[in-house]
């Protein structure tokens, strides 16, 4: 009797796990915790039957986790949503991404979509300058304003060893003839330091431990909106951009649900929500957050992401040499 009941309940449990699997997707992401909580809540309003689980960390840690799980045999991850295209391209080159040829993409800025349809940019995130309004009276306007010794020694930037956005920012700046390694060497010589992710930058500048920081725009502008004494500048030479691409991993056990999630990311609802969280949307006709410039007026620094991937290791090593690591 007891035995039969045990078998029955085991069978029931197994059934419950299988049923849950069909409707549960696991997203590995570098987007902040509370933002993702809101994203999932909004997604579940449209698709209440799909449960979304989350692993959040810096892009490098997300990649390391995926790698470790590959060794373990299988990763629970179905969807990756990370900041930088370089890491995404690496996954693609390893043959780990699922191509989504049938995804409707009208209205989405074509430059954020991978030509093989394996990943899709979901937002536009720019990197510029944050400063503490209590400590800085004349805001910087140009990247070169940061080189002044008195400014550089009070400057903090994110490290490409932790942050995907920083990988792209460094890679982009290095590809500009007027900046290059000389720019980063001068900053380092004049006392600038590197933290970890963008989180350490906003912490240090908002607390007033540093007066200036290089950072992705929404973190600075969101902190400002909540009352932190900071403001953000889009430097006049232009900004580097990342697109926070989303992709599905091959071998997912919830392909349909994962597709639904990716499709939803590009929908108007999701794009409007992204804008409400302080991101530039990638869908035509969705207004950027209040106080942000029109995306069309943004000056974007040109970048070659293939070259960036090729130089990735060398860039990180040189950076680590300059800023410690």
């Amino acid at each position, binding site marked *: 009797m007891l035995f039969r009941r045990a078998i029955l309940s085991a069978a029931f449990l197994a059934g419950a796990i299988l049923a849950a699997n069909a409707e549960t997707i696991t997203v590995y992401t570098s987007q902040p915790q509370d933002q993702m909580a809101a994203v999932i809540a909004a997604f579940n309003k449209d698709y209440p039957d799909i449960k979304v689980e989350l692993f959040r960390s810096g892009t490098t840690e997300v990649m390391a986790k995926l790698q470790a799980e590959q060794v373990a045999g299988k990763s629970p991850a179905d969807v990756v949503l990370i900041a930088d295209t370089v890491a995404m391209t690496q996954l693609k080159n390893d043959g780990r991404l699922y191509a989504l040829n049938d995804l409707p993409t009208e209205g989405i800025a074509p430059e954020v979509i991978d030509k093989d349809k394996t990943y899709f940019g979901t937002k536009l995130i720019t990197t510029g300058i944050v400063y503490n309004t209590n400590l800085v009276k004349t805001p910087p306007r140009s990247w070169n304003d940061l080189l002044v010794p008195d400014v550089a020694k009070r400057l903090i930037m994110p490290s490409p060893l932790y942050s995907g956005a920083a990988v792209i920012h460094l890679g982009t700046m290095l590809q500009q003839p007027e900046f290059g390694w000389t720019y980063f060497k001068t900053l380092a010589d004049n006392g600038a330091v590197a933290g970890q992710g963008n989180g350490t930058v906003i912490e240090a500048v908002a607390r007033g*431990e540093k007066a200036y920081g290089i950072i992705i725009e929404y973190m600075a502008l969101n902190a400002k909106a909540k009352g932190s004494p900071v403001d953000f500048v889009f430097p006049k030479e232009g900004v580097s951009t990342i697109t926070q691409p989303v992709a599905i991993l091959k071998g997912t056990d919830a392909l349909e649900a994962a597709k639904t999630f990716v499709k939803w990311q590009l929908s108007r609802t999701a794009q409007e929500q992204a804008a409400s969280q302080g991101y530039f949307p990638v869908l035509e006709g969705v207004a950027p957050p209040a106080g942000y410039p029109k995306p069309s007026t943004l000056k974007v620094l040109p970048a070659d992401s293939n070259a960036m991937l090729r130089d990735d290791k060398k860039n990180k090593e040189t950076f680590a040499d300059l800023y410690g690591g």
Partner: protein
Amino acid sequence: MAAEAPGVPITPANRLWTGERLLVALVLAYVLFTTFWPLARLFSAGLQSGEDGAFLGVMRETLANRATGRALWNSLITSGLSALISAVLGVALALALSLLRLRTQAVLVFLILTPLIVPSQTMALAWIELFGSGSPVLGPLGLAPAPGTANPLYSAGGIALVMGVEHMPLVFIATRAALRSVPADLVEAARILGIPNRRIGTGIILPIALPSVLAGSLLAFTAAIGNFGVPALLGIPGRVSVLTTLIYQRLNGFGASAAGQVAVLAILMTAIAAAALVLRHVTMRRLSAPLPAGKPFEATRRAPVIEVLIWALVLLIAIAPLLALTMTALLPAIGVRFGLDTVSLAQFARVLGNDAVRRAFVNSLFLAGLCALISMVVSVPLAYLVVRRPNWLVRAIDVLVEAPWVVPGTVVALAMILAFLKPLPLIGVSLYGTMAILVVAYLARFLPLVLRPVTAAAQTADPALDEAGRIVGAGLWRRLAWIFLPHVLPAAIAGAILVLMTALNELTLSALLWSSGNETIGVMVFALQYEGNSTAAAAVAMLSAVMVFAICGLASACARWLPDNVLPWRR
């Protein structure tokens, strides 16, 4: 139960032997799975040959690495310095509380022990808030560092200071216990002989207390070597890497491919911790003198000035950081000035509205509860074997289960990854990336917290009862359940409470082993701070501290059913 199967003719002696053998086999299987195999995997990974096949190649490569040398040096310096700070603070407080008659003694003892009760990363976060240029406590007093300067705690000195305060209770407890064993007669005799108070202190009391002071300080040193929360929050932004954070960074930056290297770092940490523990053992055996029994020395002298000084010190190390943490949790964003117009409970509402945070609380409660329960169930038969039927195998198991508690947590976590990353043989399922690997790691780490009090209680039980049970023909299982268990149950419960308190805020194991859906509270505080959301991190840390204090309260309320000396703050 197999031994009592009907129809099989078994003599009582035979039955006993079979039941016991089964018991040993079960315990052995448990220890092999949770402890022995993972640690063996770790050490073999550290000892393997290098890429070119050189003997101990991985170890030689890693030891020659500049980052290793720096982290090793930083670990030794910060831990040594912090043990010194713990010793000075702990001895001073223990002397004052034992030799002087202070009012509010009980409250003071509890407050002095809070740094041990509050989890390490919460403590670190609290000190960051206290010492930052935007400090809500120091700022209004005009004592905060100038704006535009980095937090002075982001340095080796800062790490040593915070760890020193955090581990101070270890020295305090040891010293206080020693001072309590000073016989009143001895001091009385000295007084009658006209020896001045100062010389009684240096000539009689200090020599008696010294071995315990040393032992407590070495314990503080070992704790500091294994500490992850403080160097992670203070050292990573301050670029002071120690062994625990270097392992964390290597694993997260390079994944499983760095396993060999980090295994070497783990062996290095184990060696340092082991050396300190051996030294402690030797100190206790060589230096401690047998004392005549007698009425313990009772303090009679009042000292109002010192009382004020002690309260000031305790306020600074126990209350001020937690106050700064609370005030930060009440602010909407970092850098906002603290004032009546800016404070709100919005941050608490936000974190409680966050699924991941709620799940973290559920997960931590589940993990801590399950681990406490299983550890109780395993401890009782294991303690029975250790005390009543020790043979070489049982003794070996008894020593082995201590290992995961003695070595730093990072080492245990790493061992778990190496052992359980690949799918298990036979069932083909990998524990990595699931809640199961956290459960196994917690079980390995926290078993000694229950086993030690249970074994101690078992040693005081009268073996004649067990004999009597055997003579009247009670089987092993019945004697375990009806004779042995009732005697050790209070100790087992006390151990379980300790596990609950410690495991709820565990960070070191969780930081390396957590996976999607399996967050813990410690991981949550760490992650929120890391992504630049200190106010939310402060709110989660506050909630977890409140929960631990509630468990302390609950345990205190149950104290009369518990044996003496169980709750650290009631000793």
